[in-house]
């Protein structure tokens, strides 16, 4: 096979990886602050994708525009989930929280199955078949747009945490739960906001993914796992790590798919996970805990 094919596949993998990275960023933000692992992450992602689909069919708007209302809805959902279900579990043992989210995931994925059916559904935009040419590189326009949107959202998120008062308050909560309470922060509300923000990331990522791929309820659990693999690879609690992990996993899967068979591509992501756990358990950009 000529080199150009590998280059093209790599580029496409990197672009998809950015969208994965945004999804994983949501997981990382939630974990970094609330210290709860959102086992329903992929299921929320498919929910966002279905939401985009429904809105698209009703309004005929571009999914990248629909991203805004979808993210808003997911924000509200995430906020309510944290405030209603997860906050009472904050001081429960880790496995107990995990089980709660497993239950939520189980309900979410199967409600989607009942409502939307098991078949794959997609969206066709007016740029679905466009492509960009850059020297030997040919890439799908939809992937470029989706990746661009992912970068914009990620940049906005970084800015939010760095420059706004609310973002700083949330980071304070993540650093020191008791300290944050002592200085009078309403930690539970901040937790709910954080879960909302993480969910909004997932919502935005879901809308973007709708541009480049189809949705079935069955990809929910697979996406949850993918998000975890990305976050662990990149480094837990590290926001740039999540994006980097997304890029790496996107690249690994794309190259694995073309070198072997596309249906086995996830095996390469797992292989990467195992390698990371072996040689750098804290993740590529993670800090080792003492």
């Amino acid at each position, binding site marked *: 096979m000529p080199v150009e094919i590998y280059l093209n596949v790599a580029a496409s993998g990197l672009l998809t990886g950015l969208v994965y990275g945004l999804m994983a960023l949501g997981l990382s933000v939630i974990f970094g602050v609330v210290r709860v692992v959102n086992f329903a992450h992929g299921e929320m992602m498919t929910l966002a994708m279905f939401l985009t689909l429904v809105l698209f069919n009703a309004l005929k708007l571009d999914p990248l525009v629909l991203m805004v209302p979808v993210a808003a809805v997911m924000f509200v959902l995430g906020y309510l989930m944290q405030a209603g279900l997860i906050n009472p579990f904050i001081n429960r043992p880790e496995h107990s929280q995990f089980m709660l989210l497993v239950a939520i995931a189980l309900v979410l994925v199967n409600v989607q199955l009942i409502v939307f059916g098991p078949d794959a559904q997609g969206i066709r935009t007016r740029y679905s078949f466009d492509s960009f040419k850059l020297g030997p590189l040919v890439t799908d326009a939809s992937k470029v747009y989706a990746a661009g949107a992912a970068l914009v959202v990620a940049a906005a998120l970084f800015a939010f945490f760095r420059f706004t008062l609310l973002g700083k308050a949330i980071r304070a909560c993540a650093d020191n739960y008791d300290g944050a309470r002592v200085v009078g922060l309403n930690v539970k509300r901040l937790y709910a906001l954080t879960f909302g923000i993480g969910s909004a990331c997932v919502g935005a990522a879901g809308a973007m993914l709708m541009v480049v791929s189809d949705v079935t309820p069955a990809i929910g659990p697979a996406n949850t796992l993918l998000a975890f693999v990305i976050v662990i690879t990149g480094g837990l609690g590290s926001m740039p790590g999540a994006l980097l992990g997304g890029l790496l996993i996107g690249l690994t899967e794309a190259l694995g798919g073309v070198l072997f068979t596309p249906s*086995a591509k996830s095996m390469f992501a797992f292989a990467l996970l195992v390698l990371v756990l072996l040689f750098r358990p804290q993740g590529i950009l993670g800090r080792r805990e003492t």
Partner: protein
Amino acid sequence: MIARLLEGVPRRGLAALGALLLLLLVFPAFASGYLLSVGFLILHFAFVGQAWNIMMGFAGQLSLGHSLYVGLGAYAAAALYVHFGISPWIGLGASVGVAMIAGAVLGFLAFRFGVAGVYFAILTIAFAEFARIGFDHFSWVQGSSGFFLPVANYTTNDLWNLRGSPKMFYYLMLAMSVAAFVACHALLRSRMGYYWQAIRESPEAAQALGVNVFRYKMAAVVISAAMTSLAGVVFAFYYNNLFPEQIFHISRSIELILGPIIGGIGTLVGPLVGALLLTGLAEGMREAMLQLGVEVPGVKQVFYGICLLLVVMFLPHGVWPPLARHLGLERGAGRREER
């Protein structure tokens, strides 16, 4: 030996267990074919739940990928039978061996490199998913198109080759469940059982008391994997077909841990009670829906999800501990009672 096993078990608990065993023994005489299959399913989940409980309930290591061991066990014995005509009773050696190796590799990776808690759970899922995709492309066992055993002749029971009636499988599963119950009871009161529980409660404190935490965690994973793979062997010969998409799927892993969670993690009776409740209710609901003429896939799983949600929210220790207290089986037959 038997006297030592019985030592410390409250008499009422023993009587209740005896009555339950008797009920399970005579159950096939009255049950229809359908009820018998539900009975088999309950015992199957009770057995696998017991095996999972060794890891989570005793040693505190959350595995969400136990379908890996079920699948490996099922495929190993089935492949040896189909390809070489080897009896499952011999083939199960391979099943247990493969599952133990998989468990050991997983445990080594996780415990050597400090992958604990939820990350450990993720790693177990990743292993199961890895196997699922791997078996999809494993042509020796027909990959994703499914691996089939020659369908059993229901008129004679060939126990040696596990070809026979549902009744035979029911009794086999019952014998395995009883054996698992007794084995777990013995394990829990052994040195290993004490060390596991210590590790579950506080690994640092256990290690400061001279417990080789790594070794005992490994033992928990390997023993649990071996036991779980046995259930896989029976599963393969009972259903006669294996699909990687099903047997290794994460929903299977979750299904098999619901019993012990709902029944009561770390108790001996919990997995059985949980399997009874959950499978009983789910099958009852399915029947009811069939009567009403509605058939929607996913409803059972939503039901499972809601059950799990309610239990973790309102009965964090499961159904059994409060039930045992109510029945006067304080800290019941599930937990050791010293003195």
